[in-house]
């Protein structure tokens, strides 16, 4: 197992290289006048050209990529075109906030949706089932930013329970976490439900019942662990979309995370900043996926035996 983990961590290196290549390639496809974006409308053309030269933007793509990779090999994520500061510093100063949002968003989603999924599955075709499925569907059907704005209007403007934005204190966390969490709640609920439905039809559940195992125990001891396998996959995958969804949530709630920074960097064609964000995202996400795969093995011994 240790070997497997180490192997997977080593596999991060090609992922980082691949991600940087992919993003660099896409970014270089995108037309954009970086210097003009940085200097503003009123900067004279000489200043634009001087800045382009200084940033090395006049060099061919491959040379720029090569230069970037040399830096990366030395652990240097480069300097933001826009601010002139170290990308690593810039991203890392925002990353904890985004991680905080994503983490609590996921906790919110998981804590609510797994029980709802289980209840809905065990009471299939009942009113509770319909109600929870409608709830789950509304979660997935409601555009994130719209929900966020509605929450602000309701809980910030009218009730004044929570601030409309910012990241100071736990109160500021509530609305963004709900906004972010609801989106993936639906997916986890559905997966839990369908997976649970499938599992409780399995022969071994009948076996367990025939053994005299009580209802709750059947569900939580025998069925849940089996049902969790696809759920864990979804949670892992959702974490990525959670990081992505954080972009809109961060925008709506003025959350000072990487999402907003990344969007602004993409818009400004600030390639080093974009690459830096994406690489750090990718490492984070790969580690989450590694956790998911390890969790698989933890849940399902059939898979564990394959890791050896």
């Amino acid at each position, binding site marked *: 197992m240790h070997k497997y983990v180490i192997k997977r961590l080593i596999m991060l290196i090609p992922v980082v290289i691949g991600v940087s290549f992919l993003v660099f390639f896409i*970014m270089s496809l995108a037309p954009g006048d970086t210097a003009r974006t940085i200097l503003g409308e009123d900067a004279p053309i000489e200043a634009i050209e001087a800045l382009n030269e200084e940033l090395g933007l006049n060099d061919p793509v491959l040379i720029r990529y090569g230069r970037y990779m040399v830096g990366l090999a030395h652990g240097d994520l480069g300097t933001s075109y826009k601010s002139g500061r170290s990308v690593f510093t810039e991203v890392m100063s925002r990353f904890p906030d985004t991680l905080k949002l994503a983490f609590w968003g996921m906790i919110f989603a998981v804590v609510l949706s797994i029980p709802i999924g289980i209840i809905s599955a065990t009471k299939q075709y009942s009113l509770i089932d319909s109600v929870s499925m409608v709830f789950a569907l509304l979660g997935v059907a409601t555009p994130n930013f719209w929900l966020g704005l509605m929450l602000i209007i309701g809980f910030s403007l009218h009730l004044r329970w929570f601030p409309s934005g910012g990241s100071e204190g736990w109160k500021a966390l509530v609305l963004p976490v709900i906004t972010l969490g609801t989106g993936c709640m639906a997916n986890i609920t559905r997966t839990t439900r369908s997976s649970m439905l499938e599992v409780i039809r399995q022969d071994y559940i009948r076996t367990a019942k025939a053994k005299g195992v009580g209802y709750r125990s059947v569900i939580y001891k025998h069925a849940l662990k089996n049902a969790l396998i696809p759920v864990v996959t979804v949670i892992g*995958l959702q974490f990525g979309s959670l990081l992505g969804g954080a972009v809109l949530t961060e925008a709506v709630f003025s959350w000072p995370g990487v999402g907003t920074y990344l969007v602004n960097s993409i818009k400004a064609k600030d390639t080093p900043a974009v690459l830096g964000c994406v690489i750090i995202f990718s490492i984070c*996400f790969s580690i989450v996926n590694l956790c998911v795969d390890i969790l698989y093995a933890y849940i399902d011994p059939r898979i564990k035996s394959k890791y050896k």
Partner: protein
Amino acid sequence: MENKKAKKRSMTMEVCQRLARNKMAMLGLAILVVLVLCAVFADVIADYETKVVAQNIANRLKGPSAEHWFGTDEFGRDIFARIIHGSRVSLVVGLISVSVSLILGGILGAFAGFYGGRVDNVIMRVMDIFLAVPSTLLAMTIVAALGSSLVNVMLAIGVSGIPTYARIVRAAVMSVKDQEFVEASRAIGATNVTTIFREIIPNCLAPIIVQATLSVAGAILSTASLSFIGLGVQPPDPEWGAMLSGGRNFLRDAVHLTLFPGLAIVITILALNLLGDGLRDALDPRLKQ
């Protein structure tokens, strides 16, 4: 051979019958049929030139009335007509982008799961690279690179969805590939490719269908998200997400600007999901007894 065909047909029939008995699925299907009809006959219901793009600024932001059932938008255009025409855009974006991710992701996932080992490793590492970039951001970068247009939006959303399908199909394939019926088909000399397509894919269809219905919905939402950050469909095309984004500044004064497109999205997604759930139950081979 004949026999096999007949059997297949009857299986499809059986699925349809089971589906037909599911009231919620039928409701979903009915809604979708209405939507498709709206999309097909949009021009009959509301003329594009005079209703969808013709503006009347003096009459902007008006609430629902007999003349404008859903009110008018910030340009004084009829929201009802725009929603009807928007069904075309949304359905096309949803279906095509999901087809792109489903076909490419499904094939990659099936090969990875079936062959395992090095093939699996290579495919899944490439998928990891795609996955490592959150799909919204990948889509955003691609659209930013290729330029905002309907085709690019579909492509970007489609491409960013590939890893999801690859992973799901791979997991499903891995879980069924050691089961007896697969071994059986290999035993009678089926090649790997035919095994994948004939045996494994039909047997992991249920999770894929569930995911696909969600993804069509997701694609419609992603389009809205792209519109939210200014990378959506170009005006004056009526796209629900863009309508929603465009109306967000009027959320408090003229809620109908976001309410109706929002409802259109919610209802469509609901319908897709109901149908998807119904299909899931109908397709599940374990429900046959």
